[in-house]
């Protein structure tokens, strides 16, 4: 079942068309990763799917209604978004930022009702940052900051969460921590996750469904075992890679990869 679908999408920055006539469906309660080389339009697609970017043509529907014609606050109760490396003002505390996740539910003056406080505390607890509630966000480490943003998204109490490269600028341990947290959310809360990832192996390991893109077009979309192949990697990423079984997870992983066209890889040193 796909609650969120895009039909015939044409997306442009100004007059420059990035994506043309694209059809897409996001499977419910699954983790979907969008992968592809730089500039392939994956972030553009992500932003359009969560109405951050207007579309030129086509329709993005959530439960059958056009998200670009719905009240934005109503969409914010169903879809939460974590943009790529967001910045926060100095002096803002963890508790304050997470409380902003309740904005779609507030009317008028924006006072927090007991239910809001409950949800905020829950979001802090799920992401394991309750002890940081009164800390200044900019004093935290990169991994902790990312947890705070995820907690804010959780406070929106949505069924769907979009994440644009949630692991950028994090070291490998923190990358895994964030991805484990996302997976846990998916399993425990049944949250539909859509994320753009750079690391192919992480995408394979942590997601169920994969959308691969190149030059503004979707090359494949489907469950990972069905779509992943050496040919696909060669076509999309221009790499010659071997698919092996990851002993730890039992899932496929790519190894021994090199450029298909070796001439780019040879740097002449004189």
């Amino acid at each position, binding site marked *: 079942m796909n609650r969120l679908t895009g039909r015939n999408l044409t997306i442009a920055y100004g007059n420059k068309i990035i994506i043309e006539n694209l059809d897409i469906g996001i499977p419910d309660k699954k983790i979907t990763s969008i992968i592809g080389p730089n500039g392939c339009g994956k972030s553009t697609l992500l932003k359009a799917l969560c109405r951050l970017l207007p579309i030129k043509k086509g329709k993005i529907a959530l439960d059958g209604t056009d998200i670009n014609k719905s009240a934005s606050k*109503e969409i914010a109760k169903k879809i939460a*978004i974590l943009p790529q490396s967001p910045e*926060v003002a100095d002096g803002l505390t963890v*508790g304050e930022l997470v409380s*902003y*996740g309740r904005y779609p539910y507030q009317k008028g003056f924006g006072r927090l009702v007991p239910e809001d406080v409950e949800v905020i505390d829950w979001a802090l607890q799920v992401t394991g940052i309750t002890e940081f509630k009164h800390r200044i966000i900019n004093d935290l480490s990169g991994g902790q900051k990312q947890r705070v943003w995820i907690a804010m998204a959780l406070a929106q109490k949505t069924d769907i969460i979009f994440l644009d490269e949630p692991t950028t600028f994090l070291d490998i341990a923190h990358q895994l921590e964030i991805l484990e947290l996302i997976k846990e959310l998916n399993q425990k809360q049944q949250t539909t996750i859509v994320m753009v990832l750079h690391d192919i192996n992480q995408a394979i390991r942590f997601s169920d469904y994969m959308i691969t893109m190149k030059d503004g077009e979707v090359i494949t979309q489907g469950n990972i075992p069905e779509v992943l192949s050496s040919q696909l990697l060669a076509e999309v990423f221009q790499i010659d890679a071997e698919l092996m079984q990851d002993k730890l997870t039992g899932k496929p992983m790519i190894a021994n990869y090199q450029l298909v066209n070796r001439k780019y890889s040879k740097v002449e040193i004189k």
Partner: protein
Amino acid sequence: MELKNKIPFHFSIIFTIACIILVITFWISIVYGSADINTSTILNAVFNYDPEDVNHNIIIDVRIPRDIGALLVGVALAVSGAGIQSVTRNSLADPSLIGLNSGAALMLALTYAVSPVITFPLLILTGFIGAMLGGTMVLMIGRSRKDGFNPVRLILAGAAVSALLSAASQAIALYFRLNQSLIFWSSGGVSGTTWQQLYTGIPVVAIIVVIFILISGQLSILNLGESIAKGLGQNVKLIRAGTMLLSMLLAGISVAIVGQIAFVGLMVPHISRFLVGTDYKKVIPLTAVLGGCLVVSADTVARLMGEAPVSAIISFIGVPYFLYLIKKGGRTI
């Protein structure tokens, strides 16, 4: 429930202290002046007004309106600065630095050139239109698609546009021989504030500040950046445009009352954020009170120095502060 306890408690203490300081500075500014007047005379003047008494007249017709004028201008400029800083996400923004004050001054000069006798509400309106003119020019030049309002480019655009608009004001002043009335403005002084101006100024500023307090939650969301704010379902364009208009209106009023004063809108929101953090629900009320404190005390100092221009007194603190912020990197807030 901790969220409700810990931080607002902190905030209410700071806010109360700020209010007490405001009352004290206001009182001092009534007492001290070229003629020192004691407390009982002031109370008598207010509650037991005697038209024959010179001191009573000084208090009722000169000092109190002047002090309320200073208070009003301080509140207006400081809140305007907070609004502009949140819209541009630029900690260096200030009504004067982004061309609002020079735009308002130009329109006021034009209005005086056309008709020397105009009512104060009309002056506010022209000031507002001028602020819109100056502000729009600076924002159009200072904005780019790539990185939004780059702090330094915005300030450069502001400096250039302000210089142009001020030059235009001076040309008008020379041509129409308005020097007397405009010099008074460009130096910025509240000594000529009349009750007539206050009858219009007080309600307008009060209403706008109340609106700002009501939408302060929206400003906190806006301050998270466009993507996050849109993602949370905010109508970003509406909030930005509304905030900008209200800020311009405040700048227009203050220029109509006092002329051009820079740096109030820059410094005060910074001090507020330093004291209570970045949540605008706390920043806006505190900024209003501290803005009042700053201009009232600066005006008192100006008066004690033999009617020095109040804008110069404020620049004396404001310029080093501005330079310090630039040195710090002027990063976006």
